[in-house]
């Protein structure tokens, strides 16, 4: 079983993927301009890091959707305009508050919805907390993992920063707004490094089939999911 990662060719993708800290975790690295169906053969989990050129991702969309429809896992991180090419993704941008932690009595608004999810055996919840660029609407039947309340200025009704979707496709979509490859690869924001320390090990274990399947019943937070028709 193979964990693969797309490389967007930026300095921060290069540093995060090829730096000493994580290189051993990836079985295969694929430069986004050279992605082909053949290059995905044998891959069980594919990570699309944050901040890959979205024009290229849209060009590759059919290939990536075929990959997940074959029963594989596609992880799509933030700032990839996922709402334009990933099935089921709905996105509402927010002005980014990089400074929330400097505000008086600052408390993060993120909430951990599924502490029993196997990801959180590897990633402490506090290591998922940094600024965010918008929120995702969770497809009905998918599992919201981390959510935030409605935008105080009314831009959205709240949503997820990370969800696990096993219903929209025949495979599994992990979708997040977070952008750790950029920040870790820029030698900035230690929380993003701590996040990747656990997240990439979880992704590798998922590729190896080592993570237990969710055994609790699926549930969703109704106010955060699409209304039923």
């Amino acid at each position, binding site marked *: 079983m193979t964990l693969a990662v797309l490389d967007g*060719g930026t300095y921060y993708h*290069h540093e995060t993927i090829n730096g000493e800290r994580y290189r051993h975790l990836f079985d295969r690295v694929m430069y986004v*301009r050279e992605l082909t169906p053949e290059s995905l053969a044998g891959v069980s989990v594919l990570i699309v890091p944050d901040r890959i*050129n979205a024009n*290229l991702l849209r060009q590759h969309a059919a290939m990536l959707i075929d990959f997940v429809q074959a029963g594989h896992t596609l992880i799509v991180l933030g700032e990839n305009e996922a709402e334009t090419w990933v099935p089921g993704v709905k996105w509402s941008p927010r002005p980014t508050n990089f400074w929330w932690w400097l505000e008086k009595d600052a408390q993060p608004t993120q909430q951990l919805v599924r502490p029993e999810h196997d990801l959180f055996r590897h990633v402490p919840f506090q290591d998922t907390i940094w600024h965010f*660029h918008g929120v995702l609407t969770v497809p009905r039947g998918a599992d919201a993992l981390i959510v935030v309340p409605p935008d105080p200025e009314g831009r959205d009704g709240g949503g997820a920063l990370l969800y696990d979707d096993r219903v929209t496709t025949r495979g599994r979509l992990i979708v997040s707004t977070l952008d750790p490859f950029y920040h870790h690869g820029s*030698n900035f924001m230690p929380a993003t490094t701590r996040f990747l320390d656990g997240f990439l090990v979880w992704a590798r274990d998922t590729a190896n089939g080592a993570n237990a399947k969710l055994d609790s019943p699926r549930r969703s937070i109704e106010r955060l999911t699409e209304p039923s028709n």
Partner: protein
Amino acid sequence: MKRALFLMYGQPEGGMTNVDRQLGNTGLVDFADLYELDALALPDYAAVFVSMHVDQRYLATHADMIDRYLRQGGTVVANGHIAYPFLRDLTAFTPLRDYNVDDLRVKRQTPHPVWDGVAELELTFRRGVAGFYGRGGHQPPAGATVVHTIGARGLTVDFAYPVGRGRVLFHGGNDLWQFGNAKDTTARIVPQLFEWIYAKG
């Protein structure tokens, strides 16, 4: 008057409207997709802006084209950390490890028109937080003018150097045009960048 060229990279923050606003809506900037570089006549441009977000792996396959443009008198303003050598004379970024706030203090080594009147303290700190400006350094090429270093270790963040009849201005951190929205002395950077580009004889 020749125009400047901004190489776009297909990310939300790299949208033409957003970057043009950061660059001051001068009307002097053309926006073109990085991957259309082969179709562009670089000598038609007074300067080429290279963001920290570009696909350097691709750009490095055009290092000869960029080098020719520079030697013929062009100006490249590049940002970020070098991972792939798209500029002939630059080598890889050296990250600062285990740093503290003093390691991040920006020190001006040589005055430069782009940073004229810009306070070092306001480069070092944004809302009291250090580290936005530079978190490591590059080895400046021979003949470079070192503008800013950080910390006691003196890692080079900003430098300029000639290439033939042209020149490179390199900022080893987040894109300089992010200061286009600033409210302090760093707001001088973007307009002074254009003055520097077009003051060239």
